[in-house]
């Protein structure tokens, strides 16, 4: 690699090494406790209508 690329590379990983662990800690600290019985979220199918082939 060229000297400039090595510098960009080192800067990118220094930023990631700070931001990513901090973000993970923040997410786990702020995330609400999950409800055990909660079903997976999914957009509901449209209500059956008369004449609907399904």
């Amino acid at each position, binding site marked *: 690699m060229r000297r400039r690329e*090595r510098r960009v590379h080192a800067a990118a*990983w220094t930023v990631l090494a700070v931001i990513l662990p901090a973000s993970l800690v923040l*997410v786990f600290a*702020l995330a609400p406790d999950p409800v055990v019985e909660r079903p997976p979220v999914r957009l509901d199918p449209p209500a059956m209508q008369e004449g609907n082939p399904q």
Partner: protein
Amino acid sequence: MSVAYKPVGWNRNKLIYDAFAVAAIAGYILAYLQIGPLLAENAAAVNRPILRMRAFGTCAFLLLTVVLAIGPLARLDTRFLPLLYNRRHLGVLTAAVAFTHAVFVLDWYYAFSPTPRLVALFTANDAYGSAIGFPFEMLGLFTLVVLVLMAVTSHDFWLSFLTPPVWKSLHMAVYAAYGAAVLHVALGPLAGGGERAFAVVVAASVAALATLHLLAGRRERAADKAFDERPTVDGWIDVGDVGDIAEGRAVIGAAPGGERIAVFRSKNGLSALSNVCSHQNGPIGEGKVVRGLVTCPWHGYQYRLEDGCSPPPFKERLHKYRVRLEGNRILVDPTPLPLGSRLDPVDLPTLEAGG
């Protein structure tokens, strides 16, 4: 190296590598789907389509981690160099697995949307101002776009067409893609209380990659600093002792603040070339002379010692540098000669030839 552009220049090594990679991915997906529900209680309660999209999603994340670990591992230990040789195949597979994950997600979560699925993807959640409720799907989409773009442009045709600096910059976007992937997983399945084991995997991935890249970067910085502090004689840089170079290998130096230069010892002569391969800027000086040609350790690109040019019909070229000996010390003029300049090797005195 190839004269004409072919989709893939298969050889035995690549076939074995790809077969192993595909088998490992298939094995992981099958194990996740078949064995996962038996091991994790909550996985058994999850329906099949969700389990399938998780299998592909986690597989893509792990593959991206492996792809990003290969570079620093090869810098820290040359035994990992064979993985670097075929890394782009693993990158293409990562993009394919991530794309499959995205298709399963669209087909499940947006199947009954009143708007087209892609429109729903962009409009279902617009809480861009919130931290935990942030539309993590967009982060996944960003990662996917970068991975697909990199896979599409991974061929050497695009490297030549876009020019190495543009291509290299484009492919450095993978670091942003990795960051987005981590946040996609954290704000999505992990924030939603999904698989705790995967939270550990994500944290381990971040810790391992950050450590490896920072370690490799630190080593390179130390090397640059050491090169900058080496003495110069009349503007020529002292790169080392003749006795330090094994036959067919090189010693590396650099002008203060300049790019690195590799001095190869071959057939009782010394030749200096740019240490930066014209293919993907690989460290030429860490390669060796194979059948009279300097061979890059990353992808096997080859150059002649006398003029820095690849043998016909190839067109790649490296700068040559002037070399002289003072006793056993090797001195190099840091001013590069014009590309294609021919310069005969500097003969080693008979005494050093055996050393």
